[in-house]
């Protein structure tokens, strides 16, 4: 994998944010540099889902082996999307280049590359739109910011639309709500028409389509991994939860990103889910067919998103559950909140979700019939249904990272903070302008959490890491909590690089550590096998 050397933090923080004075961006060629790009999609992964123009190709080669009619494909592709997406259509027309978005992008802040300014990222596509779809662009060309569609342009698109994590931070600041995520989503759709995906997205998509999850975990292996968690939980608490799989007639279907099952520290979050559900005696089931909450189809095309997402409702229907509970994930919740029911609804076979423990009706999910686990837990705590000992987390000083998608594609701010502050005693916010709706991306979202683009990821994650470092120095923060599977994986690497000694945790890992389970043995360690809270002495300052 990554034998590409990542520059040291010192080297990487030599960043200039002043673009060249005289040389314009249109005459600046794109350089695709190792460490800042992801490998191209392998043909087998595109063929697995029936995508066109699958072929072996290398982004570093001069010849990308584009199909003969590539230009027509792109132009017709744009035409079709203009009529399908008013967002795209308007965003192509109304930008005034005021520059408010320019320094809002984490990739620009971390790289200084002017083509990473959101406005310019969109101009890469807009310039072609003007040339092909506006009269002024056809006549006046460069004078009105129009340029020809060439192979170089396609390469530039591929490079920069896979340097955007669709985090929407720029769209918060745009006076017209222009959302670069929309532009990137469309641009990636166009690139996919030419077979130009990245393999880190195409692979998980192919896996998810056939095997039910991004990581390609087959059903028996999925259960095996769970068994391993159960062993761990039993060792720590003396209690062995008994989760079920693909069980018909359960009240609730639980779906979470497969990353939680697969790698630390997400696994601890997953153990947290199991412990909480056990304590509640929840009548729920996992599914191996719908074993993925995330949706890399969303990073590919609207159609692929729908194809992968369809499994959630299909499985809920097959199993005859009443409603769906969803785990901690970022883009999963953007999809569930803003797309799912429109794509794959209506859902007349499910019921409006009601918490079997508190009786609370989740009216805000009356149509999708899917509840966020953090909403569910917040409601439990509010109604006093959980016995919690937050002092077990006393060795931690925690800050909270708002995931882009739950922040700006949902508005999920108070629920996780309420839960967090109920299960741990030391909590500090990062500075204003870096949290809530202005939160910074982990730098690895939207399918960019590969190994070969590590330099890019460390650059993109720099603003987030820098804010963490600030509270690390100021308040002694040593744990970064979040509610996103990609965050758990990506932020761990990011912290190691920019803010060593800060760990990363999912929210329900902290919940489970604080949770007092009926009949449990006295716990001596947390889920990571570390000695419990009060036992270390150094953390007594306030």
């Amino acid at each position, binding site marked *: 994998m990554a034998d590409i050397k990542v520059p040291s933090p010192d080297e990487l923080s030599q960043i200039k944010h002043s673009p060249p004075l005289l040389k314009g961006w249109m005459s600046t060629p794109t350089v695709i540099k190792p460490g800042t790009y992801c490998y191209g999609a392998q043909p087998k992964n595109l063929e697995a889902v029936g995508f066109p123009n699958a072929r072996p190709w290398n982004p570093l080669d001069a010849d990308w082996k584009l199909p003969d009619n590539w230009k027509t494909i792109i132009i017709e592709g744009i035409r079709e999307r203009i009529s399908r997406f008013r967002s795209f259509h308007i965003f192509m027309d*109304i930008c005034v280049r005021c520059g408010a978005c320019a320094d809002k992008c984490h990739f620009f802040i971390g790289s200084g590359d*002017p083509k990473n300014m959101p406005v310019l990222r969109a101009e890469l596509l807009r310039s072609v739109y003007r040339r092909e779809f506006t009269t002024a662009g056809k006549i006046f060309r460069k004078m009105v910011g129009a340029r020809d569609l060439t192979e170089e342009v396609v390469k530039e698109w591929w490079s920069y639309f896979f340097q955007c994590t669709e985090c929407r931070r720029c769209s918060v600041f745009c006076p017209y709500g222009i959302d670069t995520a929309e532009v990137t989503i469309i641009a990636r759709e166009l690139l996919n028409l030419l077979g130009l995906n990245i393999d880190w997205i195409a692979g998980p998509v192919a896996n998810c389509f056939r095997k039910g999850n991004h990581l390609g975990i087959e059903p028996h292996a999925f259960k095996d991994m769970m068994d391993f968690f159960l062993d761990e939980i039993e060792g720590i608490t003396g209690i062995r939860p008994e989760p079920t799989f693909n069980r018909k007639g359960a009240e609730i279907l639980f779906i979470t990103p497969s990353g939680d099952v697969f790698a630390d520290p997400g696994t601890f979050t997953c153990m947290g889910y199991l412990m909480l559900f056990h304590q509640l005696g929840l009548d729920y089931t996992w599914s191996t067919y719908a074993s993925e909450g995330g949706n890399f189809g969303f990073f590919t095309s609207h159609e692929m998103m729908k194809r992968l997402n369809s499994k959630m409702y299909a499985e809920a229907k097959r199993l005859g559950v009443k409603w769906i509970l969803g785990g901690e994930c970022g883009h999963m919740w953007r999809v569930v909140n803003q797309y799912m029911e429109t794509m794959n609804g209506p859902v007349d076979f499910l019921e409006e979700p009601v918490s079997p423990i508190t009786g609370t009706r989740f009216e805000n999910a009356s149509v999708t019939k899917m509840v966020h686990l953090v909403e569910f837990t917040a409601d439990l705590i509010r109604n006093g249904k959980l016995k919690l000992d937050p002092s077990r987390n006393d060795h931690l000083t925690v800050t909270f990272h708002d995931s882009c998608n739950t922040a700006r*594609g949902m508005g999920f701010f108070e629920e996780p903070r309420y839960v967090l502050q109920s299960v741990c005693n030391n909590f500090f916010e990062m500075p204003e302008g870096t949290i809530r709706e202005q939160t910074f991306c982990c730098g690895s979202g939207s399918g960019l959490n590969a190994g070969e683009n590590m330099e890019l990821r460390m650059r993109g994650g720099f603003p987030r890491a820098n804010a963490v470092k600030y509270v690390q120095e100021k308040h002694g923060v040593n744990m970064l909590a979040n509610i996103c599977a990609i965050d758990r994986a990506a932020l761990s690497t990011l912290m190691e690089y920019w803010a060593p000694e800060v760990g990363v945790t999912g929210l329900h890992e902290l919940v489970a550590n604080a949770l007092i389970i009926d009949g449990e043995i006295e716990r001596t360690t947390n889920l990571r096998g570390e000695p419990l809270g009060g036992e270390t002495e150094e953390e007594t300052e306030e």
Partner: protein
Amino acid sequence: MNFISGIILSFITVLVLVFIPFFGMQVANLQFVFGVIIPYAAIVLFLVGVVGRLLLWSFSAVPFRIPTTAGQQKSLPWIKPNKIENPSSAAGVFGRMLLEILLFRSLFRNSTMEFREGPRVTYEWEKWLWLSAILFHYSFAVVLIRHLRFFTQPVPAFVTMLESLDAFMQTGIGPLPGLMLPGMYLSGIILLAAAGYLFLRRVYIPTVRYISLPTDYFPLFLILAIATTGILMRYLLKVDVVGVKELALGLATFHPVVPQGIGVLFYMHLFSVCCLFAYFPFSKLVHLGGVFLSPTRIMANNNRFVRHVNPWNYPVKVHTYDEYEEEFREKMVEAGIPVEKE
């Protein structure tokens, strides 16, 4: 194309445009063309263009509800939602749009990033873009409304009221004494200053300089030219105001007349305005209409409890459970996972 050639190109274009009527008057005596035909043509282009643009946009579908949420969602009853920044109903959207359109809410949020040694990044509130944008748009609106004086007889009360407010430097307002400047309108000066600042920031802020196109400088220069010719006419090189009103009223009542001897400066002013109107629908200036249709702002974040329909939603190829079980049945049975067909 770099910023210097962009500026020069736009500047020369505006200069040529402004002086076209000068030659038209001096050389060919084309008062009727510049006083009647071109203004009508410009207005027609403006109206047809803007309406056409809005129609084109409205023909594009809105498949998904994708508001950018900038506040707490509506969820559990004891969590206070932010009804404006994250609207869950039409009323909330209305409030959000009101703030957006009248106060430029999103722009008000603007910050500037400071990258220091350390490295340490900080973000500070940046108000100048917001302030200049607000002043620019409002002063432009006031100037436009003031000009209704020329197109109406009698002049409506709100126009005269606005004028006296605008001219408070002359007459004073409330406790403030007037400076007794001759009919000094604040709006024109502010418009000039704000447009001037908007131009300057394009040149001195490196990132903005880099993204600016000739089509960003052009409308600014054109507006500066309009404001300058207007101010010149009003305060220095007087033109025949009675004649101007006669012409304007004629246009407004569709009985065009061309009074003689208004002065060429007026035609330069009028022609620049015509250029702006005609240019408007085919340029970035259509943001005026676009902002009202922007899906990330005008939609409520209520997709989990109010159904949204995608007009072009089509069936897609999925991998069914049966296909899945077919492939993994043995492994599932062995692992004790229930299957449909043993």
